């Protein structure tokens, strides 16, 4: 089967890549894996046509929830990561009640306001959120062994493998949702919500469903981050980070599953590796911004449109990271 060959190549690359990278680059790789999950889950929300500015804050909800669960209730870390995702989804479910009274631009602004409220609550309440300084000394993942490989979570490589497996499973689930009748209904809600309603689709329920699922996976990503970094504060999840997520999605393109992943990977490599290596330390945001403007001007359909030109026969490519499992 020639089709599986690229997947094995990718799997091999993902296994061996960290070993040729420096320590700081390995750390970036961990962030990259988590960011891929954030931006892919964000795409699920955009399928219904709504763009939220609360996604990163929701990711923070997962991070805070998981950190607090381990600290206050001594929940084991892997369980708390999952619960972090569940709690983020529940918070999103509650938020969706007022937010989905709005559409389009108003939803965008409303989601921003809702996100800021949550963030300011973290800042305001020292108990239990730690105030502006956030939470420190979050329990790391406990080390474990699977026979052929010993996970030592002091090493970024180990955490990368762990995060990559979790992210790969999440991407597989997101992929299956998108390719299911539920995913088709999301598209229907986006393109013609009136016609969808006439076909009996409860448009608001589907918008809420997309928002809740996307938020759940974002929360999971946030929890993964929290237990890696060990410290989180309200500013780790501010609107600046949200702008990065939006940039990845826009530069990559949101028409395909792999578009945002492509955007995230390309821009991260560009930002962290190329520009840093070239010594543009101070001017990095400037150049980054310039590239963003140029790519929107000359590549309005995103990086994915380049890929589609390269292989005209295959319309739907499979997500890049899926083989990481």
């Amino acid at each position: 089967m020639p089709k599986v060959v690229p997947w094995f190549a990718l799997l091999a690359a993902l296994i061996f890549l960290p070993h040729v990278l420096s320590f700081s680059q390995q750390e970036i790789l961990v962030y990259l894996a988590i960011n891929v999950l954030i931006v892919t889950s964000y795409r699920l929300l955009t399928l219904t046509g709504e763009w939220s500015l609360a996604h990163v804050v929701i990711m923070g909800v997962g991070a805070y929830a998981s950190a607090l669960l381990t600290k206050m209730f001594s929940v084991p870390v892997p369980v708390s990561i999952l619960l972090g995702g569940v709690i983020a989804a529940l918070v999103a479910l509650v938020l969706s009640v007022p937010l989905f009274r709005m559409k389009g631009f108003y939803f965008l602004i409303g989601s921003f306001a809702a996100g800021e409220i949550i963030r300011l609550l973290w800042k305001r309440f020292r108990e239990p959120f730690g105030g502006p300084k956030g939470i420190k000394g979050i329990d790391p993942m406990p080390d474990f062994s699977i026979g052929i490989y010993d996970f030592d979570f002091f090493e970024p490589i180990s955490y990368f493998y762990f995060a990559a497996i979790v992210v790969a499973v999440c991407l597989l689930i997101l992929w299956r949702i998108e390719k299911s009748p539920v995913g088709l209904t999301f598209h229907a809600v986006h393109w013609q919500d009136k016609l969808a309603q006439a076909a009996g689709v409860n448009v608001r329920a589907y918008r809420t469903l997309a928002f809740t699922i996307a938020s759940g996976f974002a929360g999971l990503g946030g929890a993964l981050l929290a237990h890696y970094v060990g410290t989180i504060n309200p500013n780790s999840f501010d609107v600046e980070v949200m702008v990065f997520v939006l940039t990845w999605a826009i530069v990559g393109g949101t028409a395909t599953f792999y578009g945002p992943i492509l955007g995230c990977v390309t821009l991260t490599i560009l930002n962290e590796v190329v520009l840093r290596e070239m010594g543009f330390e101070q001017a990095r945001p400037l150049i980054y911004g310039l590239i963003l403007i140029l790519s929107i001007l000359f590549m309005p359909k995103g990086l994915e449109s380049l890929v589609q030109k390269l292989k005209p026969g295959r319309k739907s490519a499979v997500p890049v990271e899926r083989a990481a499992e």
Partner: protein
Amino acid sequence: MTKFLEIDALTMRFGGLTAVDGLSFTVDHGTIHGLIGPNGAGKTTTFNAISGFYKPSSGAVRLRGEVISGLKMHEVARRGVVRTFQHSTLFAELTVLENALVGTHMPFRPNIFAAIVGYDRHDRTGAEARAREALEFFNLAHLADNRAGDLSHGHQRALGMAVAYAAHPDVILLDEPFTGMNPEETRVMMGLMRKLRDDGTTILIVEHDMQAIMGLCDRITCMSFGKWLAEGNPDHIRHHPSVIEAYLGGARHVA
């Protein structure tokens, strides 16, 4: 005996404008019922009020005795009343088959957990069979893989109806279905609608093409300036003095 679809003193006000004013009529089961009237008579507004797009200012719409006015559009649809839209309201970015698949949303309700674990094969094949059946019925099967936005106007209108048909409705509300169709397409479509009716689907239709309306409908309600004007079979309506007056202007100038 409860009436099948009953519009009872339906009134729709927009600010100071009364678009529909105390309109009452009944649609019998298994008939093709036409709603006609000059431009601005309030036909489409009536449609929107029946399908749940608008909430009536007063009055009620009852289906088998149950009040459906004021419900949301998807709730009305779930009770068996499915509408089509004026112009080509479709999922233009999706394929023809995917459009019809959205139409099968009600008979084959998607389940997200089943979808993730792959336990919904049965539903998916069922939905696809129903979608293809709907395309077949409206002679669109050969276009299944085309983008809906790329279809010709007549095909787009037919697809709009196929989406509604895929939902197994009891009542189809057709809003100007023949607009943009050539006479041959209109003729074929009329045949399909008769077939639909004979299968037990009730059709309520708003249309400007008088020839089509007169040839197709079992019963016609004519309205003018938001009010009920006349009702009867096509022959009755064709010769009704008020209808002629509404369309052609006051007779007093002629006399």
